[in-house]
């Protein structure tokens, strides 16, 4: 058994079901791997951990990866895509009357000071011909976004759509409905979280990476098919995870990853034109110093030979 340390992007949640079920069902063991999963402290931190090889494999946002390659040349490469589309976007209440991006003008929105969703917001505005000066922004801590929206202080918040479940339930308590709007649906079609590896590791242990990716994708597909079992696997080692919230997150991820494209190419695949597009959007939004080339961020050839299809059903 080869020991592998794997760093998540953030605290354990429903989107991580695939790794836990892969470990629980023995997919990793079958691949000869002994995987230690540790929580993340934000994509930026995970990237640095992988770069400094204190973790061998990591899960991080593609935008953050591109930025860190461009700004500081941090040595990491994408080997597989987990979120086929970035979940960046807005969450708002149906009762607010917002229907299209334009409706946000003239209203107050809540956002945190930084993060991918915030970084991409200008791009979203530009793509939809909106004027930022017409929007009043309230900057708060990420944890406060939901209460802020529910209390009616703002009409929308910049928040990943993966978290819609929690908002939905909080809104329901007040007899309201929470909805999500993705940047990806309005001109900013970018990739989301990806698996990353240090190029040195790639050179030393390509086999191990391949086996890890294959087992991970297998676990992800299994989790899509058996969500209850997958959530239970998470809660076995992380009892603090809330089952209902985790289920929402897993379901959202599944919806995202079971599109036509992945159904034909298999989980984890990366389309070069889409990656380039993502790079262009990010480079402009973050006014990065340089345009990273594809081979500078993506190491092809680590996906399984036989594609793993998202969901048998």
């Amino acid at each position: 058994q080869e020991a592998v340390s794997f760093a998540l992007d953030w605290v354990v949640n429903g989107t991580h079901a695939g790794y836990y079920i892969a470990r629980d069902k023995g997919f990793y063991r079958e691949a000869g791997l002994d995987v230690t999963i540790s929580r993340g402290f934000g994509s930026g931190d995970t990237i640095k951990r992988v770069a400094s090889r204190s973790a061998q494999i990591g899960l991080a946002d593609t935008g953050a990866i591109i930025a860190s390659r461009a700004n500081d040349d941090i040595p990491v490469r994408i080997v597989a895509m987990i979120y086929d589309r970035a979940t960046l976007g807005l969450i708002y209440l149906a009762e607010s009357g917002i229907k299209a991006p334009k409706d946000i003008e003239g209203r107050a929105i809540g956002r945190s000071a930084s993060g991918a969703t915030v970084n991409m917001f200008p791009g979203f505005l530009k793509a939809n011909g909106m004027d930022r000066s017409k929007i009043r922004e309230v900057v708060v801590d990420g944890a406060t976004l939901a209460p802020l929206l529910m209390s009616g202080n703002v009409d929308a918040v910049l928040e990943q759509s993966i978290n819609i479940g929690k908002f939905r339930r909080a809104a329901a308590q007040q007899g309201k409905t929470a909805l999500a709007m993705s940047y990806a649906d309005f001109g900013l079609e970018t990739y989301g979280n990806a698996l990353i590896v240090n190029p040195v590791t790639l050179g030393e242990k390509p086999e191990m990476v391949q086996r890890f990716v294959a087992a991970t994708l297998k676990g992800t597909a299994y989790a899509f098919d058996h969500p209850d079992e997958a959530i239970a696997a998470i809660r076995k080692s992380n009892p603090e995870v809330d089952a209902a919230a985790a289920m929402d997150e897993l379901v959202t991820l599944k919806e995202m990853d079971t599109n036509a494209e992945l159904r034909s190419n298999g989980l984890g695949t990366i389309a070069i034109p889409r990656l380039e597009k993502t790079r262009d959007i990010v480079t402009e939004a973050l006014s990065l110093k340089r345009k990273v080339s594809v081979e500078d961020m993506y190491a092809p050839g680590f996906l399984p030979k036989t594609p793993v299809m998202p969901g048998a059903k």
Partner: protein
Amino acid sequence: MAAVDTTLRRTLIEYGQTTLAVVVLLVGWEVLCNVLSVPKWLLPAPSQIAADTWEIRAVLPMHFGATLAAVVGGFVLAIVTGIPIAVLVVYSPFLRRVIFPFLLTLQSVPKVALAPLLLLWIGYGLHSNMIVAATVAFFPIVINTATGLESVDKELLELTRSLDASTARVFWCVRLPWALPYIFSSLKVAITLAVIGAVVAEFVGSDKGLGYLILTSSGAMKTSVMFGVLLLLSLLGIASFYAVAWAERRLCPWYLPTNTDPPAI
């Protein structure tokens, strides 16, 4: 006998008052939440908090223990670094001038911003949580100890000088005991800061502890559990503060007021 009775009665009254105050607050909070029907995610009622927190009772002891260990370890670390630094600063004007800017830098940089970097350098785990807790807690100890060491009665120092006593002896037998009211005053502050420091470390780099629980429960929008954990945390803070106050009472009764209330600050 009568004296014992009075003491007992007084103690009961004292703790009774404290308990009463807490109970009144909790009841008021509960009533307010119900009357105004404050939404649960804004400010959950105590009953709600208790019920929801009770559900995770199985994992609580483990998380509580992790935080407690980081607090105690960080506090001890803060003492064993803070007091020697204060000593250096008091005895050597040169070191004072050289060390102080760095101490102040370390102190004014928010640990929340520094902790991720620190953890990247020293790794994750209990030891790093302790170190973060210590960095948060040690500054008041340095300042108060230094002030205390410098406040020694001038003629007492002259007495030791007339005996041509070594610096070490004067330190241990005169300066340090003299500074104890200052030191304990700072330890009471430091212990609460150690609690904060441990939790901050758990926010940014841990997968257990009360700080981690706060993070996960707030992430899952379980406001009531978050409040429950915050209350547990404040219990930890209160208990450790009174433990320090108790130690002070045991170790240096001479400067504490006698006839006033026992559980003084």
